[in-house]
């Protein structure tokens, strides 16, 4: 899911870098000191969890937790996702230097959309939690597919995005279970207005 360098036109990557750095400044400004530490720990926790693989249909997948990050960190989820992506690029070569901005926009959009959905308050908490986990994966997959189609790679990636429906469903179920657990043990965590 992490686009490597050299695949998408460079002008697009540079423009995406500009947008994502501007978003990083805007969405990360006026952070309280306790908030900074919590975001750092949340980024570390989501990064640690994303390293673990879960069995699914004879294979294994790893979670992105973009939806859960959106629920917990709200609009601050963008700096969290950006930092986690930068770490993954440096440590594991997932993604590239120039495509960091584009990857942050793709994943961050899923996370911000989940943050918005969670805070709208429609439907039950369980339904919203599932939906947040689901869109947190599916929206980045769709954005990548659209970017590849526009870059001239044909519609092959749209088919791949459809394959991500299963992973999005799994992420939705796990997000639902996590939110249910947090609601029971620390409900205040799910009501942060950030």
């Amino acid at each position, binding site marked *: 899911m*992490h686009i*490597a*360098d*050299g*695949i998408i036109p*460079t002008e697009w990557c540079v423009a995406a870098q500009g947008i994502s750095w501007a978003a990083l*400044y805007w969405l*990360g400004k006026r*952070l309280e*000191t*306790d908030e*900074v*530490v*919590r*975001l*750092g*720990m*949340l*980024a*570390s*926790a989501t*990064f*640690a969890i994303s390293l*673990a693989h879960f*069995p699914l249909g004879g294979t294994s997948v790893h*979670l992105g*937790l973009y939806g*859960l990050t959106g629920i*917990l960190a709200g609009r*601050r989820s963008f*700096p*969290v996702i950006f*930092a986690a992506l*930068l*770490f993954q*690029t*440096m*440590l*594991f*070569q997932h993604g*590239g*230097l*120039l495509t960091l901005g584009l990857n942050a926009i793709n994943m961050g959009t899923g996370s911000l959309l989940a943050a918005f959905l969670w805070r709208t308050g429609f439907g039950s908490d369980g339904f919203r939690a599932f939906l947040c986990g689901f869109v947190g994966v599916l929206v980045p997959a769709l954005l990548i597919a659209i970017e*590849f189609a526009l870059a*001239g*790679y*044909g519609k*092959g990636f749209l088919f791949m995005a459809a394959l991500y429906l299963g992973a999005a469903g*799994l992420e939705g*179920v*796990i997000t*639902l*279970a996590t*939110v*249910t*657990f*947090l609601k029971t*043990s*620390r409900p205040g*965590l799910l009501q942060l207005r950030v």
Partner: protein
Amino acid sequence: MRGIFSRLDPRARILTIVAAVLIVTSTPMGVLWPFTSYLVLCFLLILMSRASGFYLLWRCLAASPFILLAAGLFAFQAGLTVDGRPAGLPLAASVALKGYTAALLLAFLTATTALSDLLWGLRHLKAPESLNVILGMMYRYVGVLTEEYTRLERARDSRTVRPLGKLRFHVYGRQLGSLILRSWDRADHIHAAMVSRGYDGGWPVTISRRFSFFDGAFVVASSFLFVAARLSS
């Protein structure tokens, strides 16, 4: 013994590699000649740094799935030529060469620059403070939380006498919730400790380095060579 590249200021190393990646990836599609020169320049950089070839190869392999998938799509989506070869082959080769050269340059940067130096470099290149602090926290605590998550998994496995079956996703979800709760509580303790030591939102830096004339000259010279390699074709 460290090579010349490893002795540069981290800002110079980051700028050198970003400029090189920018030049390599902006090479027009289907133009393959400059890649011989690019690879020679990469090889010279590697010689100057004494980076491990095995590490660089391993990191390039890690980037392979996405690069090969993209190249494959380009190769076959244009159909076949009259002699049965994929019509998009030059474009696919272009995508693969750009992808692997950029991956090699990134791997080279991480092989020659410690993560703490990269974070120091980003900070001094005026990255937003929110990013610097989150990265600083990640640098310190990713290992701790990964270890904690491994302990949670070990505890789950040692106490589960039968396969979890359909329940497993609920168990995984609660496990994630548990880790998030622990990290949240840990964050409160860390914050209290940091405030007691005078933390006011800024990340103190004790290491001071000077961006020397040689650092600047290296960035300019390497960028010039990559541009020359591209234009010479």
